[in-house]
């Protein structure tokens, strides 16, 4: 290790530079993503749109400018924002879970939030509730599932982490069974396909109104996790060391789980199940900047946003029909997983 003196220097450069580089890449990818689609929009049109936005009194001059405004402002930009926010939210809450549970193979669904949210949404679809109610039910279902896992863990004494994981397993199983029941009861001609397709994940229903409503939730949730980043570092040493270093372990973990749950449940209520992002992206982030959460969380967030934005571009552009996002993230994520494991065997770094 003494011989390899270049390595720490390179690592330091990476950990300093990576977030800025990722932010730049994300900006470039975002501008590019806005140009492509069924209705191509040139950079000049985009610029004119921004100018029109800055000068609301004048408004779009031509018919074509108005059309650009609709495509960009009502369709493409909200969807882009949703992709970035959902990717970032899943990645940061995944990173937080991995630290909290001292286990790099954990994903944000550990305590049942994804199963609960799916079940809630399916139930609302079964009841033919309006779309906003479906979103609300998804969110509530996710929160309920995690609350159940926490409650079950509290029933007995012993290793907190183990009990929480067990609570999560039970909660996930319960809500998965309920989801099956809902699917069984659903009308197979229109309700069942709707539920199934929605569970595959996708951003086609990320409309302007929804995204604008969810944005503050995502931003606040991620900011909260970032504020807790040093506590996450301590928790990742295990409960005993964390407490002996001065952390009120139970309280800190409760708030961190609450924030992560809000983030994950919100992703499901907008985009359905988007798997693998919360598991893979934190690893990639750790490869770039190391495990310290103050650097990892922003990096994982940017990387996750960039990743989901690009995957969503593939989803909407690659074929004539849109491919569900959850299928793509799994197909892209799985080949990456052996790489992660190979690195992980040396050290979770």
């Amino acid at each position: 290790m003494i011989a390899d003196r270049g390595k720490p220097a390179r690592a330091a450069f990476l950990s300093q530079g990576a977030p800025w580089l990722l932010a730049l890449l994300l900006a470039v990818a975002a501008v590019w993503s806005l140009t492509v689609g069924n209705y191509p929009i040139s950079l000049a049109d985009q610029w004119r749109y921004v100018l029109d936005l800055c000068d609301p009194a004048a408004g779009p001059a031509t018919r074509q400018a108005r059309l650009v405004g609709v495509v960009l402002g009502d369709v493409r930009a909200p969807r882009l924002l949703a992709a970035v926010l959902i990717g970032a939210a899943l990645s940061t809450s995944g990173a937080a879970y991995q630290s909290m549970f001292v286990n790099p193979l954990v994903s944000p669904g550990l305590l049942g939030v994804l199963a609960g949210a799916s079940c809630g949404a399916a139930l609302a679809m079964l009841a033919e509730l309006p779309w906003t109610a479906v979103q609300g039910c998804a969110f509530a279902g996710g929160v309920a599932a995690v609350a159940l896992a926490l409650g079950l863990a509290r029933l007995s004494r012993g290793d907190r982490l183990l009990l929480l994981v067990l609570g999560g397993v039970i909660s996930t199983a319960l809500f998965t069974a309920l989801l099956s029941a809902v699917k069984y009861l659903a009308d197979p001609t229109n309700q069942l396909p709707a539920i199934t397709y929605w569970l595959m994940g996708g951003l086609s229903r990320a409309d302007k109104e929804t995204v604008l409503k969810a944005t503050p939730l995502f931003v606040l949730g991620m900011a909260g996790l970032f504020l807790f980043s040093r506590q996450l570092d301590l928790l990742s040493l295990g409960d005993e060391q964390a407490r002996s270093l001065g952390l009120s372990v139970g309280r800190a973990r409760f708030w961190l789980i609450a924030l992560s749950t809000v983030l994950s449940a919100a992703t499901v209520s907008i985009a359905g199940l988007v798997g693998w992002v919360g598991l893979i992206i934190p690893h990639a982030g750790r490869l770039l900047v190391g495990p310290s959460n103050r650097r990892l969380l922003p990096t994982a967030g940017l990387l996750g946003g960039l990743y989901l934005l690009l995957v969503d571009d593939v989803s909407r552009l690659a074929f004539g029909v849109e491919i569900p996002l959850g299928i793509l993230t799994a197909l892209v994520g799985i080949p990456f997983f052996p790489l992660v494991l190979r690195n992980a065997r040396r050290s979770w770094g």
Partner: protein
Amino acid sequence: MHVFAAENLAFSYNGTPVLSGVSFTVRPGELVCLLGPNGCGKTTLLRLLLGLLAPTAGRATVGGREAHATPPRDMAAAVAYVPQSHQGAFAYSVLDVVLMGRAAKSFFFGPPSAEDVDVALRALRRFSIEHLARLPVTQLSGGQRQLTLLARALAQGARALVLDEPVTGLDFGHQARFLEILRELCAEGYTCVMTTHFPDHALWVADRILMLRQGRIVADGPPEDVVTAETLGRLYGVDISVFPIARALRVCVPDRIRRLCRSARSTRPPG
């Protein structure tokens, strides 16, 4: 004023008693070694002193305050914990690990202050490992990792250290160096309570030895009084001889090993 005190301390796990009737006090500047066979309750006793467990009966106090009832932040200001050497799940850099000792000092939110970094680097320099600051802890040797954890304990600012088998898994040189450092810290007024599996380690550096067997203290006193062939034999269940090899230094050798060496020597072919 005692740094640590146990008063009739008892702990049972699911109804099975692990510790019972444990009483002792530790004065400032003392280096106390806990000796005892596997499963005698050494680690449980340390956890009680750290406030990680609530006693079933009796009291464990640190600086007069009941350990388990004291808020973690106040405990961290009084006692630092040096766990047994292990890699940990994540590859934090050495500096990151030492800075975690400062997390409770500042309000948790926000980055480590310049002062925190300064204190952390000074702690690393004290053990001559500041050149490792940027390396991930997973790349360190066991000895370096243990010094890193000790640096974290110093950066934490506590004057009392609880160490769980701190030299287990270290090579012989690092064991000696680590124990020597503990001795130096005690000379500066730090108080150390450590467990060890090697009575020799206790004979090298301890001011006082507590022997723990089946959850009870069976001996408590300075090494010269407490460590005898008889007490060690009873503690570990094998016959052990204690030989003086210099003024104020003795070594322990199990009788079986001694016989083995003697017979091997006598049967060795000549030339």
